[in-house]
């Protein structure tokens, strides 16, 4: 899916990027702005084109309904209990459901939580449970695009793997578009296929994650942190001309070292 923003007066293209079927990643100091653009926030002065076609006002409203956002922190305001928060979402987004209770429990089941969580207060949940509830809330409206802001931050490696498998399943079986907004290049390197780097209101680099995150100079120029495993490989290559390849898994690097040392 190609998204493009044009100035409504001059018709100049302001910003343009692709979202692919694979897991997408967004990083850089202006990543929040790109995230806001994906869910079409503040769009008075610009025209929005998706796959080359301009969206009308109604199409924009319909598009907005198809997006689920999982924020860094859960927004609770006055809703103490999990079920209150979930029913609020259904009311707020005006989701038409035959059986809301089933939808709510199904959403919890997908993220691996039981019905008992409905009566828990949000305050009493641990950080990983909060994250799971957030994803369940995002799933209620059956979104086409799911945006996750720093999803792996509070998760341990078991839960991280579970979330990744869940994202894979949503992508493959339900054709959902997944966008991960994060500054943790270690995780982006591991989990995403397509990467957008936004810096100072511009898209500076866009393309295959592996290719981008292995170009050390390019990353340093744009003040993006080099993934640890890439950094190590680069130092070894530069300093000692070592014959090791770029790998995502630490064990593969060790095999390379073992062969050549």
């Amino acid at each position, binding site marked *: 899916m190609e998204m493009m923003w044009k100035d409504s007066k001059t018709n100049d293209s302001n910003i343009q990027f692709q979202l692919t079927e694979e897991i997408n990643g967004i990083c850089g100091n202006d990543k929040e702005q790109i995230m806001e653009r994906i869910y079409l926030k503040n769009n008075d002065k610009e025209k929005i084109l998706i796959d080359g076609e301009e969206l009308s006002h109604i199409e924009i409203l319909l598009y907005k309904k198809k997006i689920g956002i999982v924020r860094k922190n859960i927004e609770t305001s006055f809703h103490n209990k999990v079920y209150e928060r979930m029913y609020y979402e259904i009311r707020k987004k005006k989701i038409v459901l035959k059986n809301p209770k089933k939808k709510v429990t199904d959403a919890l089941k997908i993220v691996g939580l039981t019905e008992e969580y409905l009566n828990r207060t*949000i*305050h009493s949940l641990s950080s990983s449970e909060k994250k799971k509830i957030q994803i369940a809330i995002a799933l209620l409206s059956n979104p086409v695009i799911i945006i996750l802001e720093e999803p792996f931050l509070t998760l*341990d*490696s*078991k*839960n991280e793997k579970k979330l990744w498998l869940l994202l894979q399943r949503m992508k493959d079986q339900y054709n959902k578009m997944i966008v991960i907004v994060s500054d943790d290049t270690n995780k982006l390197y591991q989990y995403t296929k397509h990467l957008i780097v936004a810096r100072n209101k511009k898209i500076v680099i866009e393309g295959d994650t592996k290719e981008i995150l292995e170009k050390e100079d390019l990353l340093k120029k744009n003040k993006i942190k080099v993934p640890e495993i890439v950094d190590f490989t680069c*130092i070894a290559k530069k*300093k000692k001309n*070592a014959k090791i390849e770029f790998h995502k898994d630490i064990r593969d690097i060790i095999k390379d070292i073992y062969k050549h040392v």
Partner: protein
Amino acid sequence: MSNIIMLTDFYYENLFQGLNMSIKKNSFTTISGPNNCGKTTLMRILSRETITDNIVMIKERDINDFLMEEYGKVIQCIIPLEIIFDETTLEEEFYLYIDSLEEIENMLKFFKLNKLLTKSIKNLTSKEIILSQIVIALIQKPTILLIDNLNSYFDEDERKEIIEFLKEIKKENEITIIMTTNCLNDSLLTDYLIILDEGRIILEGSPIEVLQQDNTINKIGLELPFMVDLSVKLKDYDLIDTIELDKNRMVDELWK
């Protein structure tokens, strides 16, 4: 060094079943563990936000025996707040505790809060709120400072800055700092590491020694810092002898 916090045979709901824990005076301790291991609950119990019948000893006194006014001098706890409705400005908040901002000027400058003084708390970002919470906690000169989950708000470099700053504070004042995190990389900057799982302490000691128990740590679902992970695995292959945290030195060591 004597112990400042003692938990003996501690029970709480389903989380803790007979936990024994002691924290040394004037240390900088990291408490880590997988999700749902009770890190935040422990912080809440120590800050008396959650009341238990169990005996928790601080400075050899039961925490329930302290008066409310007294307790603020003993423990300050930073657990990120979820909702804030306060209209007060940051300045007003600081003046509740001190008469002039001069003495905390350095702190404000370091945390880049000096330009936000007239802003109301409601309009601050969550990062700024936590930093001001830290300042307010330190103004009261507590014996113990608890900080919960810095890593859900700050990135790696920012966390490192905050930890280094707290270490400076610790040098000048008598203060015990306890931090919870699930990012083990941060623990390398601190003195002591405690790893909890299923309500028990499974590993404790100096961070670098604890982190070498890679099998146990991976099994409970924590991630080793990259350089420790690499070192431990290379050690298994007899390629190096010691844990090396610096990438450049590691490369020199490997390709002699």
